[in-house]
Each structure stands twice: as C-alpha cells, then as structure tokens.
C-alpha cells in the first residue's frame, strides 16, 4: 500500500527538510508571485519613468542632481511588496489554522522560524536585486541617450543593486517578526508600512538632537541607506552603519517573536 516501507525514517530533525518544505509553501501560493511581480514592475518601472522624466534636467544640469540619485528611486514602491510577502509568510498560517499542521510536521518552533527566515531572505534578496538591476538598465537607457549615463563600475552602484536585495529581505523579515507578534495579516502590514512610511517622517518633527537621532534610527530611515548610491543627506547614518542598526532592530523583534512563539499554544 505504501512506497514508504522502503524509505528509511529520518533519525534526526533537519533544517534542510524544513527549509525545503517552507519553500514549497511560499512558491505554491499564487499571491507570492503576483506580489513579487508587483515589486519588480513597480520598482523597475518607476525608476525607468522617473529617469526618463529627469534625464533632460540632469543633462542640462539645471537641478544639479546626478543620474545616480534617480537610479534606485522606484524601489520606494517595491517596499510594499516586501512587507506584504514577509507578513504573509507568518500571518497566513494563523489566518487559516495552517500553523497547527506546520507545527505537527515540525515540532521545533525555532527550526520552523529559522526555515521561514531563510526562505524569505533568499527569495526577497533575489527579487529585490533583480528589480534594482532592471531599474538601473531601464533608467540608465534614458541617461545614456542624453549622454549622462552611469556605469555599474561607478561608485556605490553595485552596492546599491545588491543592497536593494538586502534591504527588501530585511523589510520582509521585519514584517514577519511583527506578524509573529500580532498574528494578523492586515495589522502586521499596516504596522510595518506605518513604521516605514509615516512614523519615520513624523519623528523628524521632534526638535533638537533627540529628534535627529530618533529619525536616524527608525527602521525605514536606517535601512535603505545601502540602497541609494547618493546619501539622503548628512543627517542620515552611513549606509552600512544604518543597515547594521536596521538588522539589530529586526533581530530584537524576531527574538521577541520567537520567545512568544515558543511559549504560546498553537
């Protein structure tokens, strides 16, 4: 009745099996691919359009901006997709009761979360990086035609391309961690988008040095420094320091999420 008789029963748990399982989960949901497509189309598309619009100005030097300042602009919109995919990896399981099947199959909650984090990081890094490169080629075509094109060898450009992948992966992990804390899709997505798009701006209104630092340290301000070839300004942390702060924030939230996840009944 079963082909299983011939297959040895594993004698130890394996992260590899859980990762494979989580990858099948992520890849077998259509919304994953639609959302990833949205990330690519919005990110690369807006970068191309913005570059097309400003290529004249850059060429004529009227605004004083360089082509590099526009070449990752569209990625602002890609952030939404990364947040949605990251949140869903966790919250969709609570919404459907699937979390019980997941934990029955893999009782180690740490391993389940580690596998989810690995799959999410790999996927968003790949899609984010592809989006950045497509935006670069699309946008740079306009700058080239105006004679102000840039090259991948220029300062910070390659870092920005791969940095986009890293930042998208980080945003996904941040959303997953929040998802683990609130266990609700809409709540998780709203919280992270508010954190990145709204609260990050609002805190800059706090007067004095306090406001400066709070602004610098907010996830949505510290994280994307590695994405832009030209810094937002002196008031921001340097790219890698900012990203390290961003990772630290993700780590803290993830550990809080893991602690709750291990304690709670499924």
């Amino acid at each position: 009745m079963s082909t299983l008789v011939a297959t040895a029963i594993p004698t130890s748990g394996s992260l590899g099996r859980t990762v494979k399982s989580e990858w099948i989960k992520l890849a077998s949901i259509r919304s994953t691919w639609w959302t990833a497509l949205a990330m690519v189309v919005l990110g690369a598309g807006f970068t191309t359009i913005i570059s097309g619009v400003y290529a004249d100005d850059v060429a004529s030097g009227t605004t004083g901006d360089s082509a590099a300042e526009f070449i990752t602009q569209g990625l602002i919109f890609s952030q939404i997709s990364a947040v949605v995919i990251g949140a869903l990896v966790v919250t969709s399981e609570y919404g459907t009761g699937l979390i019980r099947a997941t934990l029955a199959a893999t009782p180690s909650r740490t391993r389940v979360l580690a596998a989810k984090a690995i799959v999410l990081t790999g996927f968003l890094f790949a899609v984010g990086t592809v989006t950045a490169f497509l935006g670069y080629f699309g946008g740079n075509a306009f700058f080239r035609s105006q004679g102000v094109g840039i090259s991948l060898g220029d300062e910070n450009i390659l870092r920005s391309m791969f940095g986009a992948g890293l930042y998208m992966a980080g945003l996904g992990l941040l959303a997953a961690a929040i998802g683990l804390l609130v266990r609700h899709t809409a709540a998780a997505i709203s919280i992270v988008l508010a954190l990145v798009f709204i609260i990050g701006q609002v805190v800059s209104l706090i007067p004095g040095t306090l406001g400066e630092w709070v602004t610098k340290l907010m996830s949505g301000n510290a994280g994307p420094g590695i994405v832009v070839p030209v810094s937002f300004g002196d008031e921001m942390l340097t790219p890698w320091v900012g990203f390290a702060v961003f990772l630290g924030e993700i780590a803290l939230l993830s550990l809080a999420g893991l602690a709750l996840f291990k304690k709670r009944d499924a």
Partner: protein
Amino acid sequence: MIRAQGLTKTYDGKVAVNGIDFTVEPGRVTGFLGPNGAGKSTTMRMILGLDAPTKGMVSVNGHRYASSPAPLREVGALLEAHAVHPGRSARNHLRWLAASNGIPTTRVGEVLELVGLDSVAAQRAGRFSLGMGQRLGIAAALIGDPPVVMLDEPVNGLDPEGVRWVRSLARQLADDGKTVFVSSHLMSEMALMADHLIVIGRGAILADSPIQEFMAEHASAYVRVKAPQSIDVEALLVGRGLDVTRTDDELRVHGLDAPAIGELIGSNGLLLHELTLVRSSLEDAFMELTADSVEYHARTEVAA
C-alpha cells in the same frame, strides 16, 4: 500507542482537561466521545505538542511527540478541516508536508488516490467542499504511513458515502495493527466505528471500556415496576432469580418481559401501579452519562 497520565490543561484558570489518564492501544479503533467543549480537541492538541499541558504528560509510542525527528512518520492527525491555505492546491499542500518529514514525493500521489482526490489534486483547496477538505485532511494524516492515526471529528461535513468510507478506513487501519483514535460527539457514530470507547465530559474521563461492555452496561432494556408493596414485590422477583435494582420508588427488573412480570405479581396477590418496558438507546446512555458535563445546555423549562 498513546498514553496520558494526569493530563491537565487550564486556560486562564478555567479547567479544560482535568488530570485524565488513559491508554489508546494498537490494533483497534478507540472512540473518544464527548459533547462539544468536553476537552476532546484540547487533549488531541496536547498529544501533538501544539498545546503544552498545564500538568501531567502524554506520550506517543513511548516518548513525547515533539521529540520525534519525523513525527508524521509516527502519528498522523486530522485536527480540523480546512487547516490548509485556501490558495494552495491539494497536491502542493501534501508536497510541503512530505518534504518536511523526508517522505518521498511519490507518496503524495498514493494518498491522493487513497482518499479519492487525485482528479482534483491541482485545484486550490479553497474551492473544496467541507467533505473534500476533510478528505484532504485525512490524506495529510496518512502521508507518513504512521502507526498511530488520530482523527478529530472525521465525519463532520461528509456525505453518507463519505461517512461509510471513513468507517471502513478506520477499521482497515486498526486491522493493519495501527493505533486508531477517533473523536466524535455522536454516540451513534462511535457505536458503528469503535471497538473501545473513552467517554469524556467537562475534562474528566466518564467511561473507558470496550464498546460491547459499554453497551451492555448502559443500553440495556428493563421493565420498570412501581408497586405500593415494593419490598414484597422486590423479594418475590429476586426470589425468582431476576436481576432487580431499586431506584427511588421504582424497581428496574432485568431478565423477564413485562407481561410475565405482571402476571407473577398479580398471581401473588400484590398490587401493581406501573409496569413499563424501558428501552434506553446508546444515545440515551451517552446523554445520561454526560448530562452533568455538557457545557451549554438548551434550557427547556420556562419560569413559572
């Protein structure tokens, strides 16, 4: 084999499962019967390590479920229908389960065929009827060909053909020597499916016996006798070797039919006020047994 010892679960001070002990043996279908809210699902979740017991412990095949390196190869469980992502196909749902426990993908096709879902395997599970979802859940429970199979309310939402199928599947699994643990709130269903019965109510075990024994004990017919000289009547009937039990002002007589009992009493010059044949069904027995342990009663009496 499943063994629970002093298994207890409280939620916010409310006791859901109260220090229960039981053993589920292989080679037979063990019914886990109780009204809704009795603690059946909580117990099953604790067996799978999804909920942590407040006190006590439960082991599967001699160890804790969570300590198994490939638990789906040891225990297969249907916990609730539609514990699947509605956007994922039946085949992909089974694929991720298989991958997580090192089960070859060929097994996915086998269980899909076994539960009769092979023709709709590529469809998204969200489009499934309750019955199809239940079949997918059973396929998931069987994917690791486990020696222990646990089904929580497996016939919910199934059509009569599906109900029969679940019954024969449970029988077949038990005949193959597997441990089969099936929960239900329907006594009639258990009467048809189970060899052994564990009855739970308000988190406590009310009965744990072979189904035949349970039926003999709780579902027998008797003759109710009410008589003014009940002491004399009782002495007479017992003197004839009949099994008589006294409850309040009535006698319950086993072993002789009503006309014969009436003639016997009359011919001895004793008065008779009531003579009734009482048949108690298994369903009645269950209701009686759990009457005090049902969480939410439908109130029928009206304030006067």
